[in-house]
């Protein structure tokens, strides 16, 4: 199978062909009138909306708010998750006592906690940040715990024999040694923090990208909604790719 090398050029051409077919099918569907008018707007309308959106200072203000919420959520949830993960990974008793809790609460739908978060942190940015924190805590904690357990025992013994303090153990041994799983956890955490924060914004808010999306929906401005979703997808897939590259770069001893 591997003997049949396919050149990069052919792959690029295939990709181009797929994109062209999808775009042509889209345009045909838009022109056909099979779906309700504007559900599938013409590509021209979407590109125009995208252009208007990117030239609108209001959009950047909302993007800044959502970005700050997600950043804050990742900071709080990330540190909490990292601390919990290191504790669970370092201590077998703690892990047996509490890890099941983290493991089983991880894959529950977090957005259902939103009414509670509104009561605790208000209807403003606080409840959105809280949703992001609740979302990203679990994947980061689980990855950090499993990363801790994968650390070479020799490294830990070296640290101990140098009488490293707890903080030195964390900063000099644990964190560098569990970098790859940790970065993966942060990548997953960012993904769910984006979802948690933005879903909360679509449910109840008056600012942020989630609010803009739901506003475009309620005014049935479909080209604008597509434009917003495209920007959102590009940004989140891009952020994801950057983080996974950070994890892959300069880790020659990963194996």
């Amino acid at each position, binding site marked *: 199978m591997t003997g049949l090398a396919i050149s990069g050029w052919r792959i690029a051409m295939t990709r181009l062909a797929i994109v062209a077919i999808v775009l042509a099918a889209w345009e045909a569907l838009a022109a056909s009138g099979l779906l309700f008018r504007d559900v599938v707007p013409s590509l021209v309308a979407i590109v125009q909306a995208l252009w208007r959106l990117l030239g609108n200072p209001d959009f950047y203000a909302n993007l800044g708010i959502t970005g700050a919420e997600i950043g804050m959520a990742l900071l709080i949830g990330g540190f909490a998750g990292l601390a919990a993960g290191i504790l669970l990974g370092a201590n077998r008793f703690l892990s047996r006592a509490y890890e099941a809790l983290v493991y089983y609460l991880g894959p*529950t739908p977090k957005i*259902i906690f939103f009414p*509670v978060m509104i009561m605790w942190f208000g209807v403003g940015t606080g409840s959105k940040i809280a949703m992001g924190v609740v979302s990203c805590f679990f994947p980061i904690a689980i990855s950090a715990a499993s990363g801790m357990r994968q650390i070479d025992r020799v490294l830990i013994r070296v640290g101990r024999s140098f009488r490293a303090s707890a903080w030195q153990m964390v900063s000099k041994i644990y964190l560098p040694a569990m970098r790859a799983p940790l970065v993966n956890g942060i990548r997953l955490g960012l993904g769910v923090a984006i979802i948690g924060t933005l879903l909360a914004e679509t449910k109840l808010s008056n600012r942020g990208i989630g609010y803009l999306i739901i506003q475009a929906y309620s005014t049935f401005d479909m080209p604008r909604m597509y434009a917003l979703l495209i920007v*959102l997808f590009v940004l989140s897939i891009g952020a994801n790719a950057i983080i996974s590259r950070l994890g892959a770069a300069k880790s020659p001893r990963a194996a």
Partner: protein
Amino acid sequence: MSGTTLAASRSAARVVGVVTVLAAVALVELAIRGGAINRFIVPLPSEILLAIPRIIVDENVLHRFWQTTQEILWASLLLAVVGIPLGLLLYRVRILRLACETWVAALAAAPIVLTYPLFLVIFGRSATTIVMIGFAAGVAPVILKTIEGLVSTRKVLTDVGRSFRLSPAQQFWKILLPAALPSVFVGMKLGLIFAMINIVGIEFLINFGGLGQLINELAERYDLPGTYGAICFVVLTSIVFFDVTERLERWLRPIE
């Protein structure tokens, strides 16, 4: 000997875990009764516990549970019928896989659920919207894991098939598919969990359907113990669902 002490320490740890949770709940109860926590923000845990039987009877939870289960079943059917064949297609047509696999992986990382207003426009505020979002959220891991399973079929197995001069169909049904099944099951499990999370979430967001809507309704009525109780109920249900899919996957996976 050491086995029994190990088991003893393991169960001791579990007991500590459960006791901690109960102690935390008791502490919250005391803090609320003592006035340290506002009971109009956090209701008494005992009230929440009492609210659970009430919402189960009054809010028709069994029926809602069945509605959500049906949505999950439809989404899982779609995942199997669409996701697995798509994985197979990408495996078979190598140029397609080389061109698209990174796209599918990017899709797996994309916040698909945020396109729900789009689904609302296309399918209306209906169970179809919920099922389709569940499917869209879970399809990428099914495709990726199906490809992974097929690609990693050991060469010696396909060689045996070739030496028996199996037809391509036989090669697929007798060798490739059985060899890929463990990975396909992992993909289905992941897809199902994503589908479940998103289905309940969307029910809550669009206020339609089963268990997710229950939370939204109780919150809008400002029935605090009810809201907290319903959240506990949904969390417990999703934990059970998660546990069942894990066990099912382990049970279906042949011994390696």
